[in-house]
């Protein structure tokens, strides 16, 4: 497949302290080149302080069809959210 470079997904950390965020993809021969192109393609306006690239083929994604078994079980555990608990007025912040 001489005409087809690998597809890479690009993640950029906009500022120190933030998560890396998915911004898009690009084509490159290897990780090194993918990083360089990511810099030229996705941070032309100083949008980042750090870049991750991952071969798209290496990403394992959950399927829409699985989503009920995957995510629904969390729906009945409201006690995992802070808003579930009523605090006395006197306690302002917790």
């Amino acid at each position, binding site marked *: *497949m*001489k*005409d*087809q*470079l690998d*597809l890479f997904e690009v993640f950029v950390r906009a500022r120190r302290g933030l998560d890396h965020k998915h*911004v*898009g*993809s*690009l*084509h490159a*021969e*290897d990780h090194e080149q993918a990083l360089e192109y990511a810099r030229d*393609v996705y941070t*032309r*306006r100083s949008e980042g302080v750090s870049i991750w690239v991952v071969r798209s083929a290496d990403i394992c*994604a*959950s*399927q*829409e*069809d699985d989503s009920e078994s995957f995510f629904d079980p969390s729906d009945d555990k409201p006690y995992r959210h802070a808003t579930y608990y009523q605090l006395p007025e006197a306690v302002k912040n917790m």
Partner: protein
Amino acid sequence: MTPEQNFMRKIEAEEKIEPKDWMPDAYRKNLVRQVSQHAHSEVIGMQPEGNWITRAPSLRRKAILLSKVQDEGGHGLYLYSACETLGVAREELVAAMQQGIAKYASIFNYPAQTWADVGAIGWLVDGAAIVNQVSLQRTSYGPYSRAMIRICKEESFHQRQGFEIMLVLASGSPEQQAMAQDALNRFYWPSLMMFGPHDAESAHSARSMQWKIKRETNDDLRQKFIDQTAEQVKVLGLTHPDRDLKWNAERGHYDSGDIDWDEFYNVINGNGHANRQRLAHHIQAHEEGAWVREAMSAYKARRKALTAQQAA
């Protein structure tokens, strides 16, 4: 709920459709057509302005134009990236364009003959594109919507730099003013045509609206552009190319003259000054790059073999 009902439920509820979601084939096809056409337009759109980088009349303009044209390439890339999430490789998309199966915006078949054309393209062509793209930020397909948001953020400078070129020319020497007027005259009507045929005649419009791929109709978007441009022409002090343009207080919009659709289809169908040139240019670059791409993959294969050898 059937997958189809679930899909429509999401569309109705303004939820985005994401790559792994079930979607009707026709929705996918429609998206691939629109998003790839959009991507091709960005990439082919590098040519008319790119042709002026080496001649830009000041170093400041040269730097601005170079970064603007670079952005167009970047935007093409974001859009190819969005399109690839639908399961079509960029190579296939590009091949379809080179074979004339997939289209790009016909506006780029008009030649950029003068420096003022660079101004007019930034101001009018990018201006029209932005009206469309702002609306598309709300498109129903997640990756397309995110690409649009990113593009809109970056493109705001494109229209401004074009308008600034026009402003300097329009308040410059008589020759510069004439150049600006001439560029406006040539690019105004083709810019209006960028929004596509009237809604009644648009082949893909109704379906795309129903699926919220498109959020506003061709004619509504065109009206927005006509209204905003009318005011900007006044600021420039140039003569508006549409002699029938008239404010309609009742509608709260400008009424405008008829678009010459014969000319639109004439250019789309291959009779523009640059149709053949744009494609030939793209194909030539692609073919001249073939040995480079081959060298890359040969180098990579050799390195891989070497690593495997060392491991064994």
